[in-house]
C-alpha cells in the first residue's frame, strides 16, 4: 500500500547570487517499508524530509506537482490542516539531538506536549504513556529522564528521547534524518534496532536519511541515491552492489569491503554532467 507519493518536488532558496535549488524535481513513493535516502553532505536529503512536512524555513520555497499522503495532497492543505498531519500522521526525527530539544523545558514536558497535542487525555495518562515510550526505546530510569533537562542527557539518550517523542502520537510515517550519525557505533546499532522494531511492530513507513551507504544497504528495503538535489539512482537495497550510476559506483568504490579487500580506496571523481543529467531510472 502506498502511503506517500512525492511528484516533482523542488526546494528553492532565493539568495543574493540568485535562486539556489536545493532539491530539483525529485519523485518517489513510500509504502510500509524502510526507504533509505543516501547522498553526500549538502545533497538535499534534509530538505527533502522537511519539505514533506512543509517545514522549509523562509525564504525557502517548496514546489511540487503533488505530495500526497493517503490520498490527500499536502501541498493543498491549509496551515491548520497541515498541523494536524504533523506529528500525528507524519513525524520527523531531527538530525542533531543536542539542538533539537528545548533546553529550558524538562524532557517530560516536551514528550507530554507531543502526546497531548493530538490526544485528549489527562496529564497523568499522558505521563504514563511517555514513560512507557521511554522504556520502549530502552532508556533506563524513565522517571528520572522525565524530570531531567536536555543538557543532562548524553547524545545517545537525547537521540532515543527524540525517537520516543516522535513515536508517541503513533504516526504512519517516520522521517529519520541521520538519527544515528551523532552516536558511536555500539549505540548506533542499539538505536537502529529499537527503531526497526518499533517501525515493524506498528506497520509504519520509514524514510531513513543517512550518508552511510553500508548502513542503509543493511537496514533498509529500498535506497534512493541523491546527488546535488536529484535522485540519481533508485534500487532495492539488496541490489545496491549492482548499481549503475557512476556516482553510486564511485561511492561504493570509495568504501572498504571485507569481501573484496583492496590496497587503496578510490577517491570519488565528480563529473559536471551528473548535476545536469536527468533522472536515469524512474520507479
Amino acid at each position, binding site marked *: 500500500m502506498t502511503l506517500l507519493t512525492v511528484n516533482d518536488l523542488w526546494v528553492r532558496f532565493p539568495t543574493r547570487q540568485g535562486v539556489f535549488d536545493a532539491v530539483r524535481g525529485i519523485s518517489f513513493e513510500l509504502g510500509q517499508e524502510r526507504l533509505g535516502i543516501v547522498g553526500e553532505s549538502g545533497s538535499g536529503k534534509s530538505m527533502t524530509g522537511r519539505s514533506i512536512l512543509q517545514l522549509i524555513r523562509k525564504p525557502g520555497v517548496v514546489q511540487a506537482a503533488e505530495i500526497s499522503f493517503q490520498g490527500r495532497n499536502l501541498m493543498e492543505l491549509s496551515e491548520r490542516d497541515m498541523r*494536524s498531519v*504533523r506529528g500525528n500522521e507524519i513525524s520527523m526525527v*531531527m*538530525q542533531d539531538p543536542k*539542538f*533539537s*530539544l528545548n533546553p529550558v523545558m524538562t524532557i517530560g514536558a516536551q514528550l507530554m506536549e507531543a502526546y497531548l497535542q493530538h490526544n485528549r487525555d489527562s496529564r497523568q495518562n499522558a505521563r504514563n504513556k511517555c514513560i512507557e515510550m521511554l522504556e520502549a526505546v530502552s532508556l*533506563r530510569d524513565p522517571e528520572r529522564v522525565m524530570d531531567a533537562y536536555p*543538557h543532562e542527557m548524553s547524545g545517545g539518550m537525547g537521540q532515543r528521547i*527524540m525517537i520516543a517523542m516522535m513515536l508517541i502520537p503513533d504516526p504512519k510515517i517516520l522521517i529519520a534524518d541521520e538519527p544515528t550519525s551523532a552516536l558511536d557505533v555500539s549505540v548506533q546499532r542499539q538505536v537502529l534496532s529499537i527503531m526497526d522494531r518499533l517501525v515493524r511492530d506498528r506497520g509504519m513507513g520509514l524514510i531513513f536519511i543517512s550518508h552511510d551507504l553500508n548502513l542503509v544497504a543493511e537496514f533498509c528495503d529500498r535506497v534512493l541515491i541523491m546527488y546535488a538535489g536529484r535522485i540519481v539512482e533508485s534500487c532495492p537495497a539488496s541490489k545496491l552492489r549492482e548499481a549503475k550510476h557512476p556516482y553510486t559506483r564511485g561511492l561504493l568504490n570509495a568504501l572498504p569491503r571485507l569481501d573484496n579487500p583492496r590496497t587503496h580506496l578510490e577517491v570519488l571523481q565528480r563529473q559536471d554532467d551528473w548535476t545536469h543529467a536527468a533522472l536515469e531510472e524512474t520507479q
Partner: protein
Amino acid sequence: MVSVTSQPEEGRKSAPFPAWLRKFLTTCGSIAATMLGLLLVTFVIGRVMPIDPVLAIVGERASQESYDAVYHQLGLDKPLMVQFFYYLWDVLHGDFGNSLLTARPVSQDIARVFPATMELATLGVVIGMFLGIPMGVLSAVHRGTWIDQTIRVLTLVGYSMPIFWLGMMGLLLFYGILGWVGGPGRLDIFFEGLVPSVTGMVLVDALLAGDMDVFWNGFSHLILPASLLGYYSLAYISRMTRSFMLEQLSAEYITTARVKGLSERQVIWGHAFKNIRVQLVTVVALSYANLLEGSVLTEIIFSWPGIGSYITTALLSADMNAVLGGTVVVGLIFICLNILSDLLYKIFDPRAK
C-alpha cells in the same frame, strides 16, 4: 552514566573549598573591588574639584584661624591615603557630609528625593516592558516585513531622541495645548501635603491614605514623564527582545516543536519565549538602571524632585558633597541592579546550575 557530574568534581579536587563557595567569594570580592573603585573615583573627583571645601563652609571673609581650624577638622592636612580612608569610613556609615544648599546631611536629602525617582523609573520600566517585549517578539516573528520595519524605525527614533527635548515637546503638546495631563511637579499645588508621606511615593502614599483624588492628580503628573522614560526603555527592551528571539527562532528545537504539530502561537510563546525569559530579566534590570540615569534630564524638564534634579542643582551651585553623595548612591544602585540581574540569571536558567 551522565557525563555532567564529572566536572564539578574535578574543580573540587584542586581547591580547599567547595566550588560554589569559591565562586561566591570571588563574586563578593569583585563586587567589593568595584565598589571600592567607585568610591576612589568619586574621591578623586572631589579632590580635583576647583572648589575649596573649607571656603565653602567658613565663607569668604573668615579669619585665617577659623579657616585653619576647619581645614584641620576636615582632615585636609593629612596625606591623601588617610583622607581616602576617612572618606571610606564615612561613606560606609552612610555619611556623605552636609549639603551646602539644604544645610542638612546629604544622606537625609537623598533618602527624601530618592522615592520620587524610583516612582518615575518604576512606572517607566513597567511601560517599557509591557510594550517593548511584545513588540520585540512581533518584529522577530515577522522579520523583514513592514511590521518589523515599522518597529525598527520606532525604536531607532526612540534611541535618537534627546530625552529632554522630547519631554519639552510632550509638555507643550499634552499640557500646554491639549491640557490632558498635569504639568511639571508631582502634584497640583492644592493637593500637596494632603496625604502623609509614608513611602515618599505619591501614588503609593495616596493609596495608603485612601485618597483617590490625590492619586489621580499624582497620576496625571506622573504619566507623561513616565511614558517618555517608558518609550526610551521600550526602544532598548524591544530591540534586545527581537535579537534574542531571532536567535531562538532559528534554533533546531523550534523545528522540532513544529514537527509535533504545535501552532505558531505555541511555538513562539511556549517554546522560543521560554528560552529568552532569563535574558529578558537581565535586560529589564539593566534598563531600570539606565532609567535611574535617564531620569536626570527628564526630572529637570518636569521639575520632578528626584535624585537627578538633586544632583544637577547641587552641581550648578557647587555643592560638592551633594554631587558626590548622589553619584555614589546612583552608582551603588547601578551595581546592585547588575548583580541582581546576574543572580536572577543563575537562579532561573536550568543550564546555569
